[in-house]
């Protein structure tokens, strides 16, 4: 279905016979399953975009009696709500993707880490999980899934912080290396994948990797679920083929007065109107875990930036100084410039601080604060100052 150059796809929520797909996967060799993922070009759908096939291959290569599949359902990026919808509507495909991944890497245990904000889903998910376990044990899988709940910490979406949280500790990111494929949860080899990645993996087994590579571009294969919000007449969840420009996206979802789109949430990039046409949504342009927020000309980009910095200052785990102090100082800094207490040239000092955070912060949170900060400050400088 062509629409403003956007191709709507129905892969994630497509109704399938899960038992049939899992029976097919069960008969495949582990190397074959992993090769399918490598051939598909699938990259992680949580935002970071690590190739799923490689992650499985590395974890499979580790020699350990115990390994884990962890499903990252700690969806906390502002503007992202697709994983909740996926779990609510097609949990069997999330659990199915975990069972397939478990077989491929040699793990018998899967853990879903679900954010506390989604606890209301748990009773329904437990019933669906029981049915799922009965089904896969009939097929012959030696695999079990358990749920662990988050308790309101954005940082626990960072993989090593998530492991710490599962282990019952403060969700403070670890140093890397070792990477999760070598030493993940309980210091065992772990493949940690996003909710949508696991569903996509199951659909690649169903449709074959060739069918999947028909969609998207060389760097961004397939389709992706987008969470659309902000100033749009049609907020919601949409699965779209990758490779579109921001302009095509705005033509479909904008309200006619879109002045900026924040791609990838608070840790993502702000694209101003003049760059809509040249910016591709995907790994060759602006990557996203699915968060797409539209702002029209009635919005103050200072308020947007302030809201994001306030978010980061609260959600920084506080472990490393560049992030803990950096987030606070960026927030105080833009407030001072806005009030006229600091000169507008102070903004360039703050940009240097954001650059330092990118180099010196321990994990992805501190490293990516500069994305939104710099893209908003450089494109909407006058709104920050006046």
């Amino acid at each position, binding site marked *: 279905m062509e629409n403003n150059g956007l191709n709507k796809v129905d892969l994630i929520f497509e109704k399938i016979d899960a038992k049939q797909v899992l029976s097919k996967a069960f008969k495949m060799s582990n190397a074959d399953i992993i090769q399918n993922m490598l051939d598909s070009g699938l990259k992680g759908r949580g935002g970071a975009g690590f190739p799923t096939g490689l992650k499985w291959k590395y974890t499979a290569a580790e020699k350990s009696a115990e390994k884990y599949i962890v499903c990252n359902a700690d969806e906390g990026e*502002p503007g992202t709500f697709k994983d909740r919808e996926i779990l609510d509507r097609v949990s069997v495909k999330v659990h199915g993707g975990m069972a397939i991944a478990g077989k491929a890497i040699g793990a018998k245990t899967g853990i879903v880490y679900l954010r506390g904000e989604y606890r209301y889903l748990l009773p329904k998910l437990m019933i669906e999980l029981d049915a799922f376990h009965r089904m896969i044990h009939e097929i012959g899988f030696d695999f079990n899934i358990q749920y662990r709940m988050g*308790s309101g910490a954005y940082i626990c979406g960072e993989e090593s912080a998530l492991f710490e949280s599962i282990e019952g500790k403060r969700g403070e990111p670890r140093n890397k290396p070792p990477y999760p494929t070598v030493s993940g949860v309980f210091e065992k080899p772990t493949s940690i994948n996003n909710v949508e990645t696991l569903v996509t993996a199951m659909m690649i087994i169903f449709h074959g990797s060739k069918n999947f590579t028909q969609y998207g571009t060389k760097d961004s294969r397939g389709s992706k679920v987008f969470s659309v919000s902000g100033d749009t007449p049609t*907020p919601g969840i949409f699965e779209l083929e990758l490779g579109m420009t921001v302009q095509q996206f705005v033509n479909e979802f904008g309200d006619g007065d879109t002045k900026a789109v924040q791609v990838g949430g608070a840790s993502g990039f702000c694209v101003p109107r003049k760059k809509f046409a040249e910016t591709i949504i995907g790994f060759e342009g602006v990557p996203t875990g699915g968060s797409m927020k539209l702002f029209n000309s009635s919005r103050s980009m200072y308020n947007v930036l302030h809201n994001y910095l306030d978010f980061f200052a609260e959600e920084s785990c506080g472990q490393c100084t560049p992030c803990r102090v950096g987030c606070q100082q960026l927030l105080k800094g833009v407030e001072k410039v806005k009030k006229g207490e600091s000169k507008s040239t102070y903004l360039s000092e703050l940009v240097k601080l954001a650059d330092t955070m990118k180099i010196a912060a321990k994990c992805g949170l501190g490293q990516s604060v500069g994305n939104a900060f710099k893209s908003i400050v450089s494109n909407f400088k006058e709104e920050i100052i006046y």
Partner: protein
Amino acid sequence: MYQVGNLVKELSDKHGHARENLIPILQDIVQKHNYLTDEAMVEVAKELDISAAEVYGTASFYTFLDTQVRGKYVIRVCKTITCSMKGKSDIIHTLEDILKIKVGETTADRQFSLIETNCIGWCHKAPAVLINDMPYTELTPEKISDIIKDYMKK
């Protein structure tokens, strides 16, 4: 303040006494009582054979594991950008008017606590709040006052 009684022992037996069960145990206490008392945290430390400081250190990291007194119904209003753009302040003012408390406070009868929270994943149906575990979305001042009045009757 509530009395923990046998709750901590029951939960430790249910989840297990290993370190990794600390958070599920604390979460279950919060599910029942909405916050953690010092007494509860000391009891958990004893059951898991770890220091009380470690229990407090872990609990205080997580915003949903409250260590200060909370009411029977904890109202968390999303303050992140989309909810903020779509009328979060009106929702807060309405709640402050009805409950006669400010953000961060608990009503004298310990029925309601009003706090702000970061993105809860309902941006397409903003503004949104959580009341304990339940999300309420696409709110207006009228809608949220009806919801709270229903809770008051419970």
